[in-house]
């Protein structure tokens, strides 16, 4: 698929339709729309149970114009493995058709309950693209904390109050876990940088053509409802996440780390925290320690990435 420099190079035809029940301002659709366009040719979508699944397939309706498979919460990568294996057999035994497999799973379904099926699939080396859209909690069941929830975020199972200041633990580094499997290509994608996102999907499409999967993308997925944020600010939050260095946009191409969006003058993290209700308590003086911990996490993570990016390959 060709790379783009301007958004008018993106084809018009949508394969994901209106009329779904994702909340107003939800950050999931901009990514899904783009993935379906940039991944060229015939494709199958494998969806873990999550907001994306339940809100786009309310019986008797569907928002998908491509073949789409329902999964349990924990096994999307296993289903994708099975589909890929079946496709290979059909291609060998009779005139099968080659198609691309795209998995969408939430952070709960990827960081937590689906992690072992994902790890197995990455290790076996099936040719598919897995996209974890990370809205940083189990949203469709009522905003429970996940391994993807950041330090200090209030959720219904990590409420901010006298006992804890939001989630006491740091976010799990999912990209590190994926990279440990030595996948050919892994990247973080963010809606505030749409051409970068398109070009990564286009590259994934080419790699899938060459049977170089599995490929893994980690998408920053703004969630106005779960983050208690104005619906208009979804993309603003995504941009601030990058500009504060909280959420680096980078890729790992056959072991070579490239930071795609350079952030030379980071904005103060408070600018990111203050637009989201889930973090509001962190701006109180008694929670300054949590913000300091968060800053340290950001600095360590960024500096580590810079160091790794100097290497020819981390594999």
């Amino acid at each position, binding site marked *: 698929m060709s790379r783009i420099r301007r*958004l*008018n190079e*993106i084809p*018009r035809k*949508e394969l*994901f*339709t*209106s*009329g*779904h*029940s*994702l*909340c*107003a*301002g*939800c*950050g*999931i*659709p*901009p990514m899904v*729309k*783009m993935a379906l366009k940039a991944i060229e040719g015939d494709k199958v979508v494998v969806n873990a149970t999550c907001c994306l699944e339940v809100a*786009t*397939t*309310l*019986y*008797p*309706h*569907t*928002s*998908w*114009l*491509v073949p789409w498979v329902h999964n349990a919460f924990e096994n999307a990568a296993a289903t994708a493995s099975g589909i890929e294996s079946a496709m290979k057999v059909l291609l060998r035994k009779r005139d099968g058709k080659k198609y691309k497999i795209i998995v969408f799973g939430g952070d709960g379904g990827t960081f937590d309950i689906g992690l072992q099926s994902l790890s197995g699939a990455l290790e076996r080396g099936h040719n598919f693209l897995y996209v974890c859209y990370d809205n940083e909690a189990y949203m469709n069941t009522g905003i429970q904390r996940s391994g993807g929830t950041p330090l200090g975020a209030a959720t219904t199972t990590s409420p901010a109050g006298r006992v804890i200041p939001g989630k006491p633990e740091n976010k799990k580094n999912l990209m590190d876990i994926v990279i440990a499997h030595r996948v050919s290509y892994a990247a973080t994608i963010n*809606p505030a940088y*749409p051409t970068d996102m398109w070009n990564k999907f286009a590259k994934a499409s080419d790699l899938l053509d060459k049977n170089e999967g599995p490929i893994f993308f980690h998408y920053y997925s703004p969630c*106005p409802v779960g983050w208690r944020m*104005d*619906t*208009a*600010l*979804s*993309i*603003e939050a995504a941009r601030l996440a990058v500009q504060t260095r909280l959420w680096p946009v980078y890729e790992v191409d056959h072991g070579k780390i490239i930071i795609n969006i350079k952030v030379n003058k980071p904005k103060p993290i408070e600018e990111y925290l203050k637009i989201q209700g889930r973090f509001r308590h962190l701006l109180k003086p008694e929670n300054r320690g949590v913000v300091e911990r968060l800053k340290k996490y950001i600095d360590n993570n960024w500096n580590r990435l810079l160091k790794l990016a100097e290497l020819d390959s981390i594999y």
Partner: protein
Amino acid sequence: MSSWPNKWEELPIGGVVDKPGNSLEVKTGSWRALKPVIDLDKCIKCLLCWVYCPDNAIIRRDDDYVEVDYEYCKGCGICAHECPTKAIDMVEEGGE
């Protein structure tokens, strides 16, 4: 034709949904409290609003100018917030 069956006997066997993309029957524009109004004199055809709209409610015309599809727009306001030339205003539904 609506995908809702009149009787359960009309359901496809196995409960499969045999009309791809039929959520177009669900007009989510009724969710909206604020509506975007675009001033095309200010539009520079950057298409950010079109890329970001979660509901495909920004129509990209042949000339790359944009229009709002009020049948589906949920009124989130992302388009207005992201527009680099402030060509989009959010106005109260039923107001004016």
